[in-house]
C-alpha cells in the first residue's frame, strides 16, 4: 500500500519535472502554480506512504529505496519552506528533477534491500538517518541555488533585453536561499555523522572500525567540503562561479559517499 501512495506522489512530481524543463525556456505563472499544487499533493501522498512504512513496524528506513524516498520527501519539504519564505518556485528547476528521480527509483517495485549489520541502538540509527538526510536535502537545495545563481548572473551579464523577463528571482534572493540552506544543513550533516559514528562504535558486529573504509573516507571528505563551503562563504563571501564549483564538488562527494554504501564493509546495503 505504501508503494501505491508513493506512485501517486510520483505522478504528481512528474508535473513538477515537466515544469522544471519548461521553466528553463519560458515563463508561465499558471504552470508554476499548477506545478506547486501538484507538488503539494504529491507531498501528501508521499507523507502517507512514509507513515505507512513506519507503521509497518520493520526497520526498513535503512533500505536503499525507502531512504531515497525519505530524502526526496525532505528535499521537497525544504523546497516548500523556501517557497513559503521567498514566494519563488524557481529552485524547483533543480529540486523537482532530483526529487522525481529519487522517488522514481524508490517507487520501482523491488524488495527492500536491508542493512546486513545488526544494529543494537535503533534510536541512534533513526537519528543518524534523519539528520544526515536533512543535511543531504539542504545540500541538494544549496547546489540548486548555486546553479541558479550562475544562470541568473550570466543572464544579467549577457545584457539581452529578454533577460529581464525571466523566471528566476533576484540574484541576492537566490544567494540567500543557497547560503541559508547551507547554514541549516551543516549542523544536521555534522550531527548525522556523529550519530553514525556512535552507531558504528557501539554495534558489536562491526567490531573494530576501519578508518580507511571508503564510506568513512568519503563521508569525511564530503563533510570537509561542506565545511569549506560554509567557511569561504562566511569569511570571504564566495559567490557565483567559485561557490558553484565548490557546491558541485560537495554534491559529487555526497553522491560518492552515498555510492559507498554498495562497497563499504561497515555501512553496506545487501540483499
Amino acid at each position: 500500500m505504501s508503494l501505491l501512495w508513493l506512485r501517486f506522489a510520483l505522478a504528481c512530481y512528474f508535473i513538477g519535472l515537466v515544469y522544471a524543463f519548461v521553466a528553463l525556456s519560458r515563463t508561465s505563472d499558471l504552470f508554476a502554480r499548477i506545478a506547486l499544487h501538484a507538488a503539494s499533493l504529491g507531498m501528501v501522498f508521499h507523507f502517507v506512504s512514509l507513515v505507512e512504512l513506519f507503521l509497518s513496524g520493520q526497520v526498513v528506513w535503512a533500505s536503499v529505496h525507502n531512504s531515497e524516498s525519505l530524502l526526496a520527501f525532505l528535499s521537497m519539504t525544504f523546497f516548500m519552506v523556501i517557497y513559503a519564505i521567498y514566494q519563488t518556485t524557481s529552485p524547483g528547476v533543480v529540486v523537482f528533477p532530483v526529487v522525481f528521480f529519487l522517488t522514481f527509483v524508490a517507487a520501482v517495485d523491488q524488495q527492500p534491500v536491508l542493512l546486513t549489520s545488526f544494529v543494537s541502538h535503533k534510536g541512534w540509527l533513526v537519528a543518524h538517518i534523519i539528520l544526515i538526510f536533512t543535511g543531504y536535502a539542504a545540500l541538494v537545495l544549496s547546489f540548486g541555488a548555486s546553479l541558479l545563481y550562475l544562470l541568473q548572473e550570466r543572464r544579467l551579464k549577457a545584457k539581452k533585453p529578454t533577460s529581464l523577463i525571466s523566471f528566476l528571482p533576484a540574484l541576492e534572493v537566490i544567494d540567500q536561499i543557497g547560503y541559508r540552506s547551507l547554514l541549516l544543513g551543516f549542523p544536521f550533516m555534522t550531527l548525522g555523522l556523529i550519530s553514525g559514528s556512535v552507531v558504528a562504535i557501539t554495534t558489536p558486529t562491526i567490531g573494530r572500525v576501519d578508518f580507511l573504509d571508503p564510506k568513512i573516507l568519503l563521508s569525511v571528505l564530503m563533510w570537509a567540503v561542506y565545511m569549506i563551503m560554509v567557511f569561504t562563504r562566511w569569511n570571504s563571501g564566495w559567490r557565483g562561479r567559485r561557490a558553484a564549483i565548490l557546491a558541485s564538488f560537495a554534491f559529487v562527494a555526497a553522491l560518492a559517499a552515498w555510492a559507498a554504501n554498495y562497497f563499504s564493509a561497515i555501512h553496506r546495503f545487501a540483499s
Partner: protein
Amino acid sequence: MRYQLIGVNHKSAPLEVRERLAIPEKRLPDTCRELTAYPGIEEGMVISTCNRVEVVTHTVNGHADLRGFLHDHFHLKPEELDAHLYEFREKDAVRHIFRVASSLDSMVVGEAQILGQVKEAYATARAVGAVRGQLDQLFSRAFAVAKRVRTETAVGSSSVSIASVAVELAKKIFGTLQGKNVFIVGAGKMSELAARHLMAHGCASIFVANRTYERAIGLAQKFDGQAIKFEDLYATCDRADIVITSTGAPHAIFRREHGEQFLARRKNRPMFFIDIAVPRDVSPEMGKLDGIFTYDIDDLQQAVAGHIADRRKEAELAEAIIASEVEKFEARSHTLDVVPTIVSLQDHLETIRQAEIDRVRSRMGQLTPEQEIAVEALTRGIINKVMHTPITALKSAAKESEATTVVDVVRRLFNLQIKDKDAAQTPAKSDEVGTRP
C-alpha cells in the same frame, strides 16, 4: 447593444483641448447625472484622466446626440471641438472600452494606472445610479478582459524608460532596493533622474562625488545625502550597492583593479554600475568580474528598445484576446436582447390558450379528468408548434447580429407589449434615476 461613446485622447487632441474637457473628480457625479438626464440617454458615465476624456453611454435608440451634450456641457462651439472627437457605436464602442481598460489605448501601453481610473469612474457613476444594467454588464466584462490580458500576456510587465529599466535591473540583482545605497559619480541631470527613481523604490541613502565639490554638495542636499570628495571616491565607493556614473572623463575611471578592491572589501557582495557617460566611465574588463554588473548607455537603451518591442508583440496577443471577447460579449448581448421577446411571446400565446380553454369549458360544462388532460395536451402541442418557428428564428438571429430586426418583426406580428428590460432587471435602481425625460 445600443452603446455609444464619444471622447478625446492623447492621440486625437492636444493637451490644450484635453485640459478644457478635463472634469475634476468632485464634479464627476453631477456630470453623470446631467448625462443621464440628456435626451436619448439611458445610462452614462464619464472617464476623465490626463490623457483622455470619454463619455460612455447606453442610449434609447443608438443615436443620441453626444456631441451636443459635450457642446452644451463644456460651452464649446463645434468648430473648437469636433475635429478632435472620435465616436464609436455598438461593437466598436465595446472594443474601445475593452482596449482602454486593458491599457492598449494608453500613451504607455501596458501601464497599470488606467484600469484603476476606469474603475473609479465606474464606481462614481454607479453610486449616482447613472450606471445600471447595460453599462454594468459592459464594464464588468471590461474589467474581466483587462485582467485576462494582464494575466495571459506580458503587456504590462516591462518598463520603458532608461531610469525605470535601471530600477528593474537593480531589482533583478538585489531583489528589494530597501536599504541599498546609491553612489552618484558626476552630477548630471540623467544620473539625478535615475537616482530619484532608485530612491523612490526604497534605496536608503545616497552619496555624491563630483570634481567640483560644491556641485556634489548641492546634489547631495537634494536627496538628503552625503557629498564625497572626488579623491575619496575609491576609498568610499564600495559602500554603495548601485553606482551611477556620468563624468566627462576622457578615459575609464573605474578599472578592473578598482573592481577587485571593492569586491574584496564588500566580501563579494554584488555591485551594479549604471554607466551613462560617453566615453564610458567603467572599463569593460571590470564588468567581467564576478559580482560586478555594468550597464552602459547602449545596454540600457537596448533594454528599453527590447521592452518596447516586447510590448508591441504582447499587444498583438492582447488585441486578439480583445477581439474574441468582443465577439463573445456581442453574442451574449444579442441573446439577452431576444430573451424578453421570447418570454412575451410565450406569455401571449399562453394567455390566448387559457382564454380559449375557458370559453370551451363554459360551453361544454364539466370535463372528465381524462378529457382535461387531453385538451391540455392538444392545446399545448398546438401552441408549441406555432411558437417553434419564431423562437428558432429569434435564437439564430441573436447569433448573427440581426436580433433587432427579427425582434421588431416578431413583436409586430404578434402585437407584443414588452416590459422595459432594464427596469425589469434593476427595479430598485430605476426609481432612483427619475430625472430622465
